[in-house]
């Protein structure tokens, strides 16, 4: 929130313990997808293959880190009442930038991601970090926080995409991993799991990751 005061005034080294925590926490104990349950829709939609998931992760990484820095720099100028609109303008300009770059250099992937690049604007992780962190902290810390959360988002996306592409189409990054001769059509015994290509399986895969995570760290389990 805008009224949050900066508590620490003394100079901190760039990679102090607190700053490192900003990056490492979102990877596990406060992961944006599995713990905060934000940004689920894109995690379900673009994880059929690894490559689009990677491009999506990088896009979100750029938008989140840059947006956090910009908002943090402007945090004392933004009137509290219109802060959401200002945040939207910032994130929208960054997303348009990303969209144009993708269209120029990786057109195929851009077509595949289609509307989901534009939907980064409404990705709850980004607005969430702006509201919860960038408005109350300096640019460097906000940058690290953006990186941390984007990495947290990225590894879940890539993990889900890894299993979906491997089991769903027998490939990784488009390369055939399961030998062709294994397939039933080639006289083998194997068949790809078509359900992995459908969104429900992405949800179940995310669910399994959440399950594993919570059985390792029981503090994450909510009270009923």
């Amino acid at each position, binding site marked *: 929130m805008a009224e949050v005061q900066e508590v620490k005034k003394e100079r901190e080294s760039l990679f102090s313990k607190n700053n490192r925590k900003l990056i490492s926490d979102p990877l596990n104990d406060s992961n944006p997808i599995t713990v905060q349950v934000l940004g689920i829709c894109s995690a379900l939609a673009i994880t059929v293959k690894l490559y689009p998931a990677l491009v999506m992760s990088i896009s979100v990484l750029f938008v989140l880190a840059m947006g956090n820095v910009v908002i943090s720099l402007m945090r004392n100028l933004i009137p509290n009442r219109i802060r959401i609109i200002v945040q939207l303008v910032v994130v929208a300009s960054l997303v348009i930038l990303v969209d144009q770059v993708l269209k120029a250099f990786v057109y195929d992937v851009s077509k595949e991601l289609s509307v989901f690049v534009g939907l980064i604007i409404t990705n709850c992780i980004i607005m969430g970090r702006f509201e919860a962190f960038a408005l109350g902290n300096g640019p460097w810390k906000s940058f690290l926080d953006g990186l941390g959360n984007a990495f947290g988002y990225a590894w879940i996306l890539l993990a889900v995409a890894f299993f979906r592409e491997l089991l769903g189409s027998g490939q990784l990054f488009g390369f055939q991993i399961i030998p062709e001769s294994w397939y039933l059509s080639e006289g083998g015994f194997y068949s790809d799991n*078509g359900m992995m290509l459908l969104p429900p399986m992405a949800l179940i895969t995310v669910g399994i990751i959440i399950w594993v995570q919570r059985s390792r760290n029981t503090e994450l389990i909510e009270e009923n």
Partner: protein
Amino acid sequence: MKLFKNILESVKPHFVDGGKLEKYYPVYDGFATFLFTPGHTSHSGAHVRDAIDLKRTMVTVIFAMVPALLFGMWNAGNLHYGALGLAETVGFWDKFLWGALKIVPMLIVSYGVGLGVEFIFCIIKKHQIQEGFLVSGMLIPLIMPIDIPLWMVAVSVVFAVVIGKEVFGGTGMNILNPALTARAFAFFAYPTYMSGDKVWINTSAAEGQSVVDGFSGATVLGSYATGGEVGYSTMDMFLGFIPGSIGETSTLAVLIGAAILLYTGIGSWRIMLSGLIGALAMGLIFNTFAEYAISPEQQSFMAVPAWQQLIMGGFAFGLVFMATDPVSAAQTDKGKIIYGFLVGFFAIMIRVFNPAYPEGIMLAILFMNVMAPLIDHYVVQGNINKRKKRLATVKAA
């Protein structure tokens, strides 16, 4: 029996506290209580003493499924030899043996994998083995096509037990029927092995044999959905001489099972009866509106007499053995009637309106499994409100 008892007694020291295999006590306990009535009694709280427990319930359901299983074995062989034009020459026992050789491995895989997963979870979670899988393990092969590769059965079983059951806390906590979860998984994951007109009859021909001319392996539902010719008489459908999943074809065998379940009081008559009425209702609605169908295939499907819908496909099997699953069905009496009615209603609606999913009963039961808690909630709330109102009138008077 004495032999088993001696073996159990001799290995017991390894499993109790302090023994070498202490961690695996649930496994020992599972086997011991499966074979013998436990020698200990409960010490706290009030307990109902009854001759029937979870295991005996399960075993009764399995007995009820035996007619469908045995018929399925013979029918698989009959269809196989029929496709090769040898139906007349091959004897009863050869057909039965051929089917058994295909189906028994599926049963072994289903039970082996399913119980294996359950054992693993019991050891991790340190609770006693629950015998919920006994019925599911038998149901799963019965609702699979004859030609499905065994590893697909295994993967589906793992999915059903882990995602369908253990995630929610094990036997008794599952939202969905595990056997249908396995079938739905296989259906969406390996559609080419679970649907179409190639998978229901095994046509592998030995040397010197060949598939007869004009052979069609389509199920009755498949034929209707695609507007093809249905080459089976009503009697064939009722007795089950038709292609389909292994155990579902014979309505007669299912009815024998239903009689066992109803006589022992294990299956809910409310669900079965209201399901029957629901299916007939939907069938009659279709009959009435058949002329407004959007395509000729759909029109012929909609015009199928309502009673004939009951003996086609897996409707009877699903309604008797899976819709009545006491865990995933509605719990209240009134809820069971609503639940059963909608299962029948949707089953016929899905199979007629969606040619891609000819087997509507699977999706209808899964859908209503999800809705069952909601139905129960409103039934209970309705009862509370009714009694509140009664209390208010009594107070006012």
